[in-house]
């Protein structure tokens, strides 16, 4: 258990609702906090009804969705700045950006959903990409709410079910999330590799 997780769990035991909410909110914005650990532990505390499971669920869900919208907004605001300044230098032409936006428009919802509850390591880049593209906020919000509902419910329920022995789940979860994320990233890299091998060499600059 890292020092950061130890400190957060100590505070969680004293101030469960605010610490759970703040950890999830700040973690969703991109600060590397052990949100999974905190939500599991919070769920384990609910076994005797204090804290209240449903209230805790609502607070964590609201914090997670708020964090997603914040990082989406950062992508919308900062994405254009980055593209305008360095886009041309890294090969982000208007045609490529338009194609990427079209793909995101088509598959973005599923991507947002899956990165909330399975490939959580890719949630932040997805939020930033959704914001930087023209993906509409209401649709992002709807998909993020569903994904975060699944994420919050599954972790709180696991914590509730395992009680004090929730700690023994951490290794399973770490490995499962690492494996799924590695598979997703590998699929993306293979796709990129194929495109690079097939592309005709044309001058761009």
């Amino acid at each position: 258990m890292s020092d950061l997780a130890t400190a957060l769990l100590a505070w969680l035991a004293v101030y469960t609702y605010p610490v759970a909410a703040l950890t999830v909110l700040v973690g969703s914005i991109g600060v590397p906090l052990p949100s999974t650990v905190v939500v599991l532990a919070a769920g384990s505390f609910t076994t005797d009804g204090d804290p209240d499971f449903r209230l805790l669920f609502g607070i964590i869900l609201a914090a997670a969705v708020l964090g997603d919208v914040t990082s989406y907004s950062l992508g919308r605001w900062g994405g254009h700045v980055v593209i305008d300044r360095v886009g041309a230098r890294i090969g982000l032409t208007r045609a490529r950006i338009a194609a990427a936006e079209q793909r995101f428009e088509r598959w973005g919802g599923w991507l947002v959903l899956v990165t909330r509850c399975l490939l959580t390591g890719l949630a932040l880049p997805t939020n930033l990409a959704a914001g930087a593209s023209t993906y509409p906020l209401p649709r992002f919000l709807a998909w993020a709410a569903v994904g975060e509902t699944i994420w919050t419910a599954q972790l709180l329920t696991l914590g509730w079910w395992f009680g004090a022995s929730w700690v023994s789940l951490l290794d399973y979860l770490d490995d499962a999330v690492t494996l799924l994320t590695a598979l997703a990233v590998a699929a993306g890299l293979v796709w990129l590799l194929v495109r690079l091998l097939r592309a005709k060499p044309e001058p761009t600059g």
Partner: protein
Amino acid sequence: MTTLRRRPLLLAGVTVALVVVLLLGGRAAWRLGHRLLGPPPPPRQTDVALIADWMSVPYVGRAYRVPEPELYRALGVEPEGRRVRPLRQIARDSGRTSDQVVTIVRETVSAWQESHPGPPTPVGATPPPLPPTPQPKPKDGGPDRPRPPP
């Protein structure tokens, strides 16, 4: 710089990244496989052997349903300023080893559990009901619309 000149570098970079990602994924898969071959972690375990020195007194109190004052009394320290300190820090502050402090806490929890037996954990119990799941509202006919399972 042209794509032609840059392509070998990009290819090399993507290939290296792919190898690294596959190695990380393979390592996680191997470890997960080994874990899944072993016995699953038991739910609602109140075995005091799980108490570790990273836990704080309020954490142990909540996780094992023991009043905090009992634990502070057993440790011989006041709660003021120590509620968010892990047991290892309490041990350091009081000139003891982590093992000594953890042992005291385990014995206190065991004694409390014996003198205050709680109701048995219902096997197959269901967690409290959750609020209804919000449904996404993609635009009509859009490709994002979730399809019902066949």
